[in-house]
């Protein structure tokens, strides 16, 4: 069996997280989403996987030098061109991607799977494929039931008694959805699907091909097999799944490092003495981290590789990305922070570089004098008010 993982998207709704990391490479603890998908495909007998890349293609391609460690063959299909030493991304749209790959090598020669690279799934793909064959389908979509208030984020599918999809509602307004089943971005196709994809034009599965199939009464089926579907479309989704993983509640993701105290996982080469900090589990601290004595760490929280947490810092229910220095004046509460950006789980962002606050957040590899000079300059103004405790007000 062959499969395609769609990984070319820019992840606009995941800004600023996706600014320097393509969406499928966002890690849940230490594992990129797309790695979990490859394992899932391998488990269900897929032997060849194509990943289409465009935005930050190198990040994906260099991580997966080969698929051998997963027992599969990996191939990459880049969408864009090189000019004057730079790559210019030109994502094709999910359907045109299939067309381009087919024109290149005739890769899709039998029933194949297509997955979106931005959701964690534990779907029984074997059962999905069996249902596809049993129905004699041209295309089968894995559908999931979602609560009414979330329907407006997705493509809603309307089925007849036999499971055939009659129509779609794209992101219906609250209360207007005619079904509670949504498209999860997991598809099974016959190669004949290519007849519905025109040449030389951007074309999308969700907005072009599927509605056309439904209109024409083609063998387009929806199958609802209960499974865990963790969509990571928005910052709040990513925050929620990371929090769950830190608590050990995501089956596909075991917590890395050594559990040095109940619920406190610490990676190799990390300097951290929880007895000398204010600590509340659960938390996952990656490798090569420094946490100075006197820091306050209230879980669930995650601190990425090579980060440096100064004494006096307050971090609570937050995610600190790789190589972030968090300065002693900082309070991170329900934040996602790096040296280049800082986001609230509601998507509000602060740019520490533009805001000129390197002593609050910086790259942990930045030379210190430039950071400390700025801090001293600021503290000279701040220090006169220092006796006040957090939350207390001047009178």
């Amino acid at each position, binding site marked *: 069996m062959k499969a395609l993982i769609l990984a070319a998207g820019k992840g606009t709704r995941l800004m600023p997280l996706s600014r320097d990391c393509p969406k499928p490479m966002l890690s849940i603890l230490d594992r990129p989403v797309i790695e979990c998908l490859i394992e899932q495909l391998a488990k269900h007998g897929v032997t060849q996987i194509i990943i289409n890349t465009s935005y930050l293609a190198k990040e994906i391609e260099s991580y997966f030098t080969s698929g051998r460690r997963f027992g599969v063959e990996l191939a990459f299909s880049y969408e864009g061109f090189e000019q004057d030493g730079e790559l210019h991304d030109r994502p094709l749209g999910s359907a045109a991607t299939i067309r381009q790959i087919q024109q290149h090598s005739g890769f899709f020669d039998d029933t194949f799977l297509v997955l979106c690279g931005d959701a964690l799934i534990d779907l029984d793909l074997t059962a999905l494929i069996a249902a596809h064959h049993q129905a004699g389908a041209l295309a089968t979509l894995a559908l999931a039931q979602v609560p009414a208030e979330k329907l407006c984020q997705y493509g809603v599918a309307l089925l007849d008694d036999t499971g055939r999809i009659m129509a779609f509602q794209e992101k219906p307004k609250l209360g207007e959805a005619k079904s509670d089943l949504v498209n999860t971005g997991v598809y099974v196709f016959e190669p004949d699907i290519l007849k519905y994809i025109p040449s030389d034009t951007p074309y999308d599965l969700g907005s072009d091909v599927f509605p056309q199939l439904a209109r024409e009464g083609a063998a387009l089926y929806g199958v609802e097999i209960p499974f865990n579907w963790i969509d990571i479309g928005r910052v709040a989704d990513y925050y929620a799944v990371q929090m769950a993983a830190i608590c050990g509640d995501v089956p596909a993701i075991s917590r890395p490092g050594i559990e040095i105290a109940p619920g406190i996982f610490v990676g190799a080469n990390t300097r951290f003495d929880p007895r000398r900090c204010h600590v509340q589990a659960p938390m996952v601290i990656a490798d090569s981290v420094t946490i100075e004595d006197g820091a306050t760490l209230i879980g669930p929280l995650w601190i990425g590789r090579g980060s440096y947490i100064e004494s006096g810092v307050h971090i609570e229910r937050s995610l600190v990305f790789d190589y972030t220095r968090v300065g002693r004046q900082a*309070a991170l509460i329900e934040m996602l922070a790096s040296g280049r950006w800082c986001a609230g789980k509601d998507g*509000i962002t602060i740019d520490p570089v533009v*805001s*000129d606050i390197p002593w*609050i957040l910086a790259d942990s590899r930045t030379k210190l004098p430039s950071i400390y000079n700025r801090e001293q300059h600021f503290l000279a*103004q701040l220090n006169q*008010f220092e006796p*006040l405790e957090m939350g207390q007000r001047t009178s």
Partner: protein
Amino acid sequence: MELITRHQHNTQTIITFNTTSLDASNADTFRKQIRASLESSTKIAIDMSSLSFVDSSGLGALLSCLRYCTEQGSSFALYGLQRPVSALFELMRMHRVFQVFNSLDEIAGVQA
């Protein structure tokens, strides 16, 4: 155009911004323009609602106002912070030093 506008609301001197950001480009101008108000009033309330961006220079300018008022025994309060600005305040724990309120009414309530 003036960076700030001053008006009086009962005993309170209110400063509003005619700009959307208080940063390195205008922090010194702000300091100069607000000076007369700080000298002539004992109750200063800064309406932050038009500001969508404040950087460390802007915070520095607000801190120097606060220092001056504290020395003079005047009150100096901020209100109406937009979400990105209040997020910066939380991140930097500026609530430790500034009196921050949601609205002018809230300031009046506290000072009554």
